[in-house]
């Protein structure tokens, strides 16, 4: 039996879905986190052993879709004929939610209303007479609090009761001409009048929503014109500081101790094997994977903190603050949501761009979201921050805001190249109530992502490291490479031509080139490959409570200056993301031209940024420019020339639109 979960955005559908099924899907305290449908069986102890399939749908305000993810919802409940619908109603906003409820009731699918967020109502002393509401709607109403999983058993029992039975819609639109705008509008007004009637009968409210409250005082500071961005910067700095300089490394130390012990144990048990097999297993697989997994605690702490931020309602305010700036470059505050999600992983981030209506805005957002430092990039940041810079937390924060800066610049460039005049765009964002973030939700979200991280480390990363180890152990005649002849290995000969290209960026050695290339498969590979090619078994020092073992030593082995290291780090962060994220970009953009344009932009950004950081940094620290300056300059100037050419073309296009009297809207 299929049970569809439908309701307004941010009414708590996904939280309820998680409570019903025991799944751990990403939920956030703002509208539009879920962009696709998903299904899972309801927990056996709730469903009394019947096979009940819950289907989570994106939020919608009505049956007439506004964005593509809303149309998933209306077409699912209309066409797929679920056996029952659970309509999640935000109890704090009955007067809006019931509009959709009455539309759903007209479908003739048995329905139960889950009156969610009942706990917030209690606090505000808003009372809803559920018995009366059930009577008015003609369907059962169950009070729930999805966040604390209250009312789930009653809800499922009610659903089982109504399935197969007939319900009568309390409001029927009747036979109206659906093509007549006016007729539809009149009917919709009648529907709202009907809803108003119900609300006045069932709801008593002490605190009016229109009154100023504590939330507004908080908004006045957090979403302040000038303070908003500095506050956001401090919040992100705190996230990076706790996860990368304090709590994260503390836990990492313990974990790395275990990994070392494990590696020694394995090394001991394969003592009799061939030296190649030993090094493949101990240095390649355990060393490479271990180097990545060692950073897991940092990533976990970061995910935990971000989950707290998402849950408390702050992120919607960040969107409000950023809207002003994003609007100037042809995006809107809505674009910040995919970017926030992209801080966890670029793939769901890119998918979240679906909530943006305007095609150009949507494609631009999908193209630029991967500039955010995702969880996979975190070990890379942590490694370089620890090895080359004294305080790890500012490096992370700097990379985060550099990401936002490149997004803004990239959006501006896209605007110019597509020849779009900044059109009059409208921004509306529901402001969710602030609440104490749930530690449990954050913990579960963290564990879920940690699991994914470990699985990735044990599969893709493991295979990549093994391949890298094999490729660096053999030369093209499949003979083991002797010590001191590493540059004759297969890996070295493949990576060397790329290394030439990287000379102007300060890291023209094949080992670093190889690590950057494996990074396209998964960004964690950069760390794993560096561990393998430089035979550093682990980066985190167990004894010295230091993030990176003998920082100067690691820096020495890699043979780079701090400036070159920063350039290398930024190159890895701001080039195209992993292949999986590129795949997500492809499916959201639905245009090969945009996809290749996006990849070119990402490569160009990575190269140009690394070039500028290395050359300017070297000039400042040593007084002369770095290696390969002329070559790199030619490359960057060529890129700039191409971009200027494209902008000129874009402007010509914009003028053409103006001449034809057309609005250059898309």
């Amino acid at each position, binding site marked *: 039996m299929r049970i569809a979960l439908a309701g307004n955005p941010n009414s708590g559908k996904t939280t309820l879905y998680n409570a019903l099924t025991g799944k751990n899907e990403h939920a956030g305290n703002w509208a539009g986190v879920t962009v696709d449908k998903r299904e899972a069986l309801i927990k056996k102890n709730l469903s009394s052993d019947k096979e009940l399939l819950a289907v989570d749908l994106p939020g919608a305000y009505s049956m007439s879709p506004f964005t593509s993810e809303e149309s998933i919802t209306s077409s699912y409940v209309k066409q797929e004929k679920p056996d029952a619908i659970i309509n999640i109603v935000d109890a704090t906003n009955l*007067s809006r939610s019931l509009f*959709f409820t009455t539309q759903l009731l007209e479908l003739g699918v048995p329905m139960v209303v889950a009156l969610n967020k009942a706990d917030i109502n209690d606090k505000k002393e808003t009372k809803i007479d559920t018995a009366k509401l059930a009577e008015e709607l003609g369907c059962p109403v169950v009070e729930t609090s999805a966040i604390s999983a209250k009312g789930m058993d009653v809800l499922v029992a009610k659903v089982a009761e109504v399935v197969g039975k007939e319900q009568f819609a309390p409001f029927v639109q009747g036979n109206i001409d659906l093509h007549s705008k006016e007729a539809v*509008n009149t009917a919709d007004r009648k529907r709202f009048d009907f809803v108003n009637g119900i609300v006045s009968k069932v709801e008593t409210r002490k605190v009016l929503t*229109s009154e100023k409250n504590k939330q507004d005082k908080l908004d006045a500071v957090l979403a302040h014109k000038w303070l908003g961005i500095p506050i956001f910067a401090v919040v992100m700095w705190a996230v990076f500081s706790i996860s990368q300089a304090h709590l994260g490394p503390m836990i990492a130390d313990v974990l790395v101790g275990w990994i070392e012990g494990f590696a020694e144990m394995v090394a001991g048990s394969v003592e009799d094997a061939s030296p190649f097999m030993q090094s493949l297993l101990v240095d390649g697989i355990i060393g490479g994977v271990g180097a990545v997994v060692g950073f897991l605690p940092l990533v976990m702490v970061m995910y935990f903190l971000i989950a707290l931020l998402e849950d408390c309602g702050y992120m919607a305010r960040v969107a*409000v603050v950023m809207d002003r700036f994003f609007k100037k470059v042809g995006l809107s505050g809505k674009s910040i949501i995919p970017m926030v999600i992209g801080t966890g992983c670029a793939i769901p981030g890119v998918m979240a761009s679906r909530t943006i209506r305007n095609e150009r805005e949507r494609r631009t957002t999908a193209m630029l979201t991967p500039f955010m430092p995702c969880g996979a990039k975190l070990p890379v940041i942590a490694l370089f921050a620890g090895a080359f810079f004294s305080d790890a937390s500012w490096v992370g924060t700097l990379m985060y805001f550099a990401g936002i800066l490149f997004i803004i610049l990239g959006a501006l460039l896209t605007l110019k190249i597509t020849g779009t005049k900044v059109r009059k765009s*409208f921004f509306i*964002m*529901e402001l969710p109530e602030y609440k104490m973030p749930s530690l449990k939700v954050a913990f579960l979200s963290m564990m879920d992502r940690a699991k994914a991280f470990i699985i990735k480390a044990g599969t893709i990363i493991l295979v990549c490291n093994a391949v890298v180890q094999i490729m660096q152990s053999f030369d093209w005649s499949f003979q083991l490479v002797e010590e001191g002849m590493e540059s004759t290995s297969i890996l070295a000969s493949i990576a060397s031509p790329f290394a030439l290209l990287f000379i102007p960026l300060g890291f023209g050695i094949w080992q670093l080139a190889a690590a950057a290339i494996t990074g396209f498969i998964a960004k964690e590979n950069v760390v794993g490959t560096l561990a393998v090619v430089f035979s550093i078994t682990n980066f985190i020092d167990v004894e010295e409570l230091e993030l990176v073992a003998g920082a100067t030593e690691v820096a020495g082995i890699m043979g780079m200056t701090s400036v070159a290291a920063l350039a290398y780090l930024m190159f890895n962060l701001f080039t195209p993301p992993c292949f999986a994220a590129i795949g997500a970009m492809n499916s959201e953009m639905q245009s090969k031209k945009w996809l290749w344009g996006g990849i070119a932009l990402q490569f160009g950004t990575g190269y140009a940024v690394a070039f500028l950081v290395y050359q300017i940094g070297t000039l400042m620290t040593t007084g002369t420019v770095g290696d390969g300056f002329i070559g790199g300059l030619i490359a960057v100037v060529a890129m700039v020339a191409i971009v200027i050419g494209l902008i000129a073309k874009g402007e010509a296009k914009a003028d053409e639109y103006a001449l034809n009297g057309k609005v250059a809207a898309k």
Partner: protein
Amino acid sequence: MTLANGTIGTTYTITGIQTDDEELNDFLFTLGCYSGEKITIVSMVSESYVVSIRDGRYNIDVNLADAIAVEA
């Protein structure tokens, strides 16, 4: 007048939405933002308005505020 020239803390009655973007119009309708309904300006943050429509709180930008025609 439009909501953009409204004052903070005042409740207005919407007289119409001035836009040729029909989808936006329909969307606002589903939130309960249409002629005859009430809208309150709660506060201003970051050059945008915090408004209350029915029992929902929204942040809207100046462009949108300017498209909502209201009367006191």
